[in-house]
C-alpha cells in the first residue's frame, strides 16, 4: 500500500506540467486552517479563491487610481478609465474576441443571461420557440421561463441516464426552429461537457441565435469564441480567480450593436433630452451607471494569472486530479457517483454515500477541513430527472493537489465510521 502510493506520487509529479506547490503559495487563503485542519477547498464550481496578485490589483487601484471612469478629464479619472478599458481588452484577448467592444461587464453570468433574455426576448413573438437543455444551471433556465408570459415555448433537450446530453433529442427539438438556442458548455452539477462546437453549428444552421453559458468552461479550458462561432457567451469573474461582482457578456459586435440597451441611465447614453435618449458606443451602451471598476481590474489580473499558468495546463491538471479522485473513490464501498466518466467531464465529482444524507457527508467533511457543496447545485430539474434530491459535489481547480483528494477520501471514510455504515 505504501509502496504503491509512493510510485503513483512520483509518476504524478513527472507528468504534471504545473507547479502546484508554487501556485498554492500564491493563494493567501490556503494558509488558513478549518477546524484545526488544512483547508481543502473543493467548491470551485461555486466560486474560486483569489491569488495575491488579484487582491493586490484591487488594493493598488483603490490606493492609487480610484476615480469615476469615462467622465473626468483629470489624471485620476484618466488612469482609472485606461485600466478599466484595458480590462475589457484583456478579457477579449483571453476568449479570442475581436476586441473590447465585444466585452460587456455585468455583475455575473446570471446578469449576462438575463440581459439577453430581456433584450433578445423583446424581439420574440407569441409562438416562437427557445431551446435549452436539462443540464442548465437555474440561471440559464429561469430567465427563459419568464418569456412564457409572452407566449414563447421553452423546449428542454433531455439527458441520457449517465447525464450526457441526449443529442438526438437536441436535434429533434432544433427541428421546431427555435429562434434562440441557449446551453451550457458544461454542467455545474455533474461536470458533463456538452459538444459545444457541434451544437453551435447545428443551431446556427437551423437559423437560431446561439448563446453559450460559459460559466464552467472559461475558467477551466482554453476557449476561443471566434472558432466556436456562438453569437453570445456569458461567464463570471469570481469563478476564474477574479473578484465577486464582475461578470462578462461576450457578443459578436454586429449582434451587440443591433440589440436594444437593457439598463439605462448614466454612462450608457449619448444625448438625453427631456423626451428621449440616444445610446453610447459599444460596450458602454450596456454598462449603465458607475461600473464595478475595481472588479474589472481584478478580473484582468485574474486573467493574467491564468495566462501565466496556461489554460492548457489548467485543463490537464484538473483532468489528472479528476482521474485520481475517481479511482480513489472507487475504492470506497457504498458510494454512488453521478454523471459520465472522467473523459466527458470537467473536474467535478458528484456523489452520494449510502446511508448518509449529502448534507451530513458535507458536515463531516467540513469537520475535517474539506469544503464541498451538498444540495441540488442550482439544477433542480436535472436532479429530479436523475431521481436524486441532493448530492455531494467536489470540484477542482489549479491549486488543488493530491493531498486534497486524499483528505476528501479520508473524510468520507470517517463519515461512514461515524454513521456506522461501513459495509
Amino acid at each position, binding site marked *: 500500500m505504501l509502496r504503491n502510493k509512493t510510485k503513483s506520487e512520483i509518476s504524478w509529479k513527472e507528468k504534471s506540467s504545473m507547479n502546484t506547490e508554487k501556485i498554492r503559495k500564491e493563494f493567501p487563503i490556503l494558509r488558513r486552517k478549518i477546524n484545526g485542519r488544512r483547508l481543502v477547498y473543493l467548491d470551485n464550481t461555486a466560486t474560486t479563491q483569489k491569488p495575491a496578485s488579484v487582491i493586490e490589483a484591487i488594493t493598488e487601484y483603490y490606493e492609487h487610481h480610484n476615480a469615476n471612469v469615462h467622465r473626468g478629464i483629470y489624471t485620476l479619472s484618466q488612469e482609472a478609465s485606461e485600466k478599466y478599458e484595458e480590462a475589457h481588452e484583456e478579457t477579449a484577448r483571453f476568449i479570442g474576441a475581436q476586441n473590447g467592444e465585444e466585452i460587456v461587464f455585468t455583475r455575473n453570468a446570471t446578469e449576462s443571461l438575463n440581459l439577453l433574455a430581456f433584450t433578445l426576448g423583446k424581439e420574440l413573438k407569441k409562438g416562437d420557440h427557445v431551446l435549452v437543455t436539462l443540464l442548465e444551471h437555474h440561471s440559464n433556465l429561469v430567465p427563459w421561463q419568464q418569456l412564457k408570459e409572452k407566449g414563447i415555448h421553452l423546449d428542454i433537450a433531455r439527458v441520457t441516464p449517465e447525464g450526457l446530453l441526449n443529442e438526438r433529442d437536441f436535434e429533434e427539438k432544433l427541428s421546431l426552429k427555435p429562434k434562440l438556442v441557449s446551453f451550457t458548455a458544461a454542467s455545474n452539477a455533474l461536470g458533463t461537457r456538452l459538444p459545444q462546437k457541434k451544437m453551435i453549428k447545428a443551431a446556427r444552421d437551423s437559423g437560431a441565435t446561439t448563446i453559450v453559458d460559459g460559466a464552467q468552461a472559461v475558467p477551466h479550458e482554453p476557449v476561443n469564441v471566434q472558432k466556436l462561432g456562438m453569437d453570445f457567451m456569458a461567464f463570471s469573474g469570481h469563478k476564474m480567480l477574479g473578484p465577486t461582482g464582475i461578470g462578462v457578456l461576450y457578443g459578436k459586435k454586429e449582434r451587440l450593436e443591433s440589440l436594444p440597451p437593457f439598463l439605462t441611465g448614466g454612462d450608457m447614453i449619448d444625448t438625453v433630452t427631456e423626451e428621449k435618449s440616444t445610446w453610447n458606443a459599444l460596450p458602454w451602451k450596456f454598462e449603465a451607471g458607475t461600473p464595478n471598476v475595481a472588479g474589472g481590474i481584478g478580473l484582468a489580473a485574474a486573467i493574467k494569472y491564468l495566462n501565466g499558468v496556461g489554460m492548457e495546463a489548467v485543463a490537464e491538471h484538473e483532468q489528472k486530479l479528476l482521474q485520481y479522485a475517481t479511482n480513489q473513490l472507487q475504492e470506497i464501498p457504498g458510494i454512488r457517483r453521478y454523471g459520465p466518466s472522467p473523459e466527458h467531464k470537467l473536474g467535478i465529482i458528484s456523489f452520494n454515500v449510502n446511508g448518509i*444524507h449529502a*448534507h*451530513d457527508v458535507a*458536515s*463531516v467533511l467540513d*469537520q475535517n477541513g474539506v469544503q464541498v457543496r451538498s444540495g441540488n447545485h442550482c439544477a433542480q430539474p436535472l436532479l429530479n430527472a436523475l431521481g436524486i*434530491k*441532493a448530492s455531494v459535489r467536489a470540484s477542482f481547480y489549479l491549486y488543488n493537489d493530491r493531498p486534497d483528494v486524499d483528505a476528501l477520501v479520508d473524510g468520507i471514510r470517517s463519515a461512514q465510521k*461515524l*454513521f456506522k455504515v461501513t459495509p
Partner: protein
Amino acid sequence: MNELYSELVLDLYRNPPNRGKLQPHNVRASGGNPSCGDAVTFTLWMENGIVKDIKFENEGCAISTAMQALLTEHVKGKPVAEIQRITEQNALEWLGGSITPTRQKCATFALKILQKELRAVEQRNK
C-alpha cells in the same frame, strides 16, 4: 464525541420513533426546505385541541430526521397552545450538541411547518 452529531442524533437518525403514516389521521402537515431537498409530512390525530397521536414521514439528513422524531415525541399528548410556544431555540436544545448556523434550518423547518398547520386548523375551527 462529535460536536454536531451527538449519539442522540445518530441514534434517532438510525432508529427514529414515530416514523410512518398515522392511520387514520385528521390533520396533515407537509412541507420542505427546497434549498436542500428536505421534505416532511406529519399525520396527526387531534381531539379537543390536543395532539392525541402523531407520526412523520420524511426525506432528509440526520439533523432534520432526529429533530422530527424528537418533535413528535414532544408534542404527543400536548395541547396546541403549548405546541405553539415551542421556540426554535427550545428545539435546538433538545438536540444537545451545537448545531452550526448553516444546519439550523435543517433542524427547525419542520417545527415551523407543524405550527403553521396547527394555526390553520384553529382558524378553520373558529
